[in-house]
């Protein structure tokens, strides 16, 4: 078997194992809640009989290990349960006979929002990755110039500000003082692509500001690290233009750390998306998560948590694998 394939399979296996352990951590955390689900659904004034019935119904009388595996099985098959808020509502109006399929499941709640979040992350990546590569190459080309210093200070400031500060500054200048973009991103499923893109632009710009800095600095550092090598010297002595030296000769060898940092920053988007979605009232999974945290809607919280953790692990894994693949020494072993 090819050694790279072997390493990749190894990493995939490790990632799956991590996800499994993470699911155990989430399960333990959720089960350390005072009282239990039955009490939480029925409220304080429930009779002991009703609590016992619901406990039996939800399988809460089983030992923890059995419950964990049942829960894990449900998660893997996409049965994420029913949110407390929805369950209460459904029991309020009787069984939701008109829809015919029972109360809205967590999966039905999450699926459209997950798509929206992916759309936002995608738009951000499409803007941020080329922009940061371009800025990084320019900063490396004109290193120690005014442009480099301004870009460096700007990047450092952007990356260390809280997301909501950048978001409100952008709202102030691009939505309130100069109304070019909408400040609220209310998105519907039957919206055209252009309209949807326009309303996603402001949150995407905020996230771009957050992630560009690190990618840009990494690109610059990776290229500058290589500039002292003999083969770059050779290219310079041949009389190539500085831009050509960097793009054709330095960049391909600097790709491994750059790809790595890009994947890590996309993983960072997963966390950053939560605050930004709340600021712009963007109907994504982050907003659902925060709302559920506030009302302690456990099934939604744990499902969102697992999805975020899964995406995070996947992107970290991708960073790992891509940096292995982009390393020619590993690709062509002796």
């Amino acid at each position: 078997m090819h050694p790279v394939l072997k390493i990749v399979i190894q990493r995939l296996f490790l990632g799956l194992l991590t996800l499994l352990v993470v699911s155990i951590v989430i399960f333990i955390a959720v089960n350390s809640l005072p009282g239990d689900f039955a009490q939480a659904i029925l409220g304080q004034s429930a009779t002991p009989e009703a609590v016992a019935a619901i406990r039996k119904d939800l399988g809460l009388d089983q030992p923890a290990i059995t419950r964990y595996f049942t829960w894990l099985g449900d998660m893997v098959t996409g049965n994420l349960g029913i949110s407390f808020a929805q369950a209460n509502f459904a029991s309020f109006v009787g069984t939701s006979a008109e829809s015919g399929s029972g109360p809205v499941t967590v999966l039905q709640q999450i699926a459209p929002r997950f798509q929206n979040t992916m759309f936002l992350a995608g738009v951000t990546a499409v803007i941020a990755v080329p922009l940061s590569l371009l800025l990084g190459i320019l900063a490396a080309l004109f290193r120690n110039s005014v442009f480099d210093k301004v870009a460096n200070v700007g990047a450092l400031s952007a990356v260390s500000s809280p997301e909501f500060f950048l978001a409100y500054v952008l709202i102030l200048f691009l939505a309130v003082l100069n109304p070019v973009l909408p400040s609220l991103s209310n998105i519907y499923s039957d919206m055209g692509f252009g309209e949807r893109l326009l309303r996603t632009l402001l949150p995407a710009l905020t996230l771009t500001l957050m992630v560009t800095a690190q990618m840009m600095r990494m690109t610059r550092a990776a290229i500058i690290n290589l500039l002292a090598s003999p083969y770059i010297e050779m290219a310079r002595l041949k009389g190539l233009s500085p831009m050509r030296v960097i793009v054709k000769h330095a960049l391909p060898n600097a790709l491994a750390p750059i790809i790595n940092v890009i994947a890590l920053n996309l993983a960072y988007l997963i966390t950053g998306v939560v605050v930004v979605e709340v600021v712009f009232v963007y109907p994504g999974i982050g907003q659902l998560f925060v709302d559920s945290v506030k009302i302690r809607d456990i099934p939604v919280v744990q499902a969102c948590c697992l999805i975020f953790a899964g995406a995070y692990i996947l992107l970290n894994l991708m960073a790992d694998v891509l940096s292995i693949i982009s390393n020619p020494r590993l690709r062509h072993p002796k």
Partner: protein
Amino acid sequence: MSGLMWIVAALVVIAALSWVFRFAGQAVTGNRPYFRDMSYGVAFGFVLGAAILIWVVYTFIKARFILDETAAAPYFFFIFAVEGLIVAGIAAWLFRAAGRLVGTGGTRKLFRSMPLTASFGILVIIIYAILSIFAQVIAPYGQEEVFAAANTLPGTDPMHPLGTDNIGRDLLSRLIYGAQNTVGIAFVTTCLAFLLGGSLGFLAATLGGWLDQLVSRAVDVLMAIPSLIFALLLMTIASAWAGNQGWLLTVYMIVIIAVIDSTRVFRLARAVGINIVVMDYIEAAKLRGEGLGYLIFREILPNAYAPLLAEFGLRFCFVFLTIASLSFLGVGIQPPLADWGTMVRDLAQFINFAAFSPLTAALPLMAAGAIALLTVSVNFVVDWMLQKSSGLKE
């Protein structure tokens, strides 16, 4: 779309001007190598930079001195940003100049090689420290003091220069107390994270074996969950445990964030510690029969000082931002404690008044900006420290 047209037109003019600029440079300097070898992109960059600078100066002078007050209202934030940048630059320069003249030989030497960004950062950190320690003396009123006049707008009541919030608390006082609460809590959390992560990391590095394996694998798992998400999950559970006691929830939050962030500290402390443990002087100390405590505190810690200090600055920023984000989302520091994250959330809707009452719209930005200013400053200082200790010249 006329705005877009203007931008395109401006770019075309700049493109033409940059060609003229290069040609003029070549003609005037008698084809000096600098202009002779200048690529078109560089010329374009120069002209673009000059155009932006001219536009900023022109708009600033127009808004600041020529327009009357109502017409200049939309430019309030622009003027503030430009003046703030100038004042910050001058203050940082003066502070650095003062640092070069006063103090011991060591600190003077430090200030001599300091970039302006770093001296600005140190200045801001000192101001925040003073504000947070003496908040009780500086703030005009208490943070929970409620006045009869609720919802006064900033600038209307001389008693409350920044106005009052929806239940009548003085916003200026709450902003100042925010320095004490938000920064103080973040500082305590970071210290706790360092105590936990640092001691475990050094222990793992010194002892090795099963302890190292156990803690390292546990840390791997905790780091696989994005920290803000994990914090939110644990806060859900903590809020169920704390019930209605706000202070208890704040204590839980400190512990939760300290544990989550201690994993990152552990990684660094262990990595640094392992490099030190293999040194000869550690071997010598072990042969002398020194105990574990001596090894960690007298031999490893002094040698791990520089990277740990830089990490402390960065970690403080992360903790501070996490706490601010949690408070902004409504699950962090609980009222009645004044806190910047909560203030941003409560005052956010005022931003829509920017066109006619800039000072009101500035309220949420003041709280958010207070957070940003501190984290940016700490980052400036840490960046300078890292650059200095790594000996990088570029």
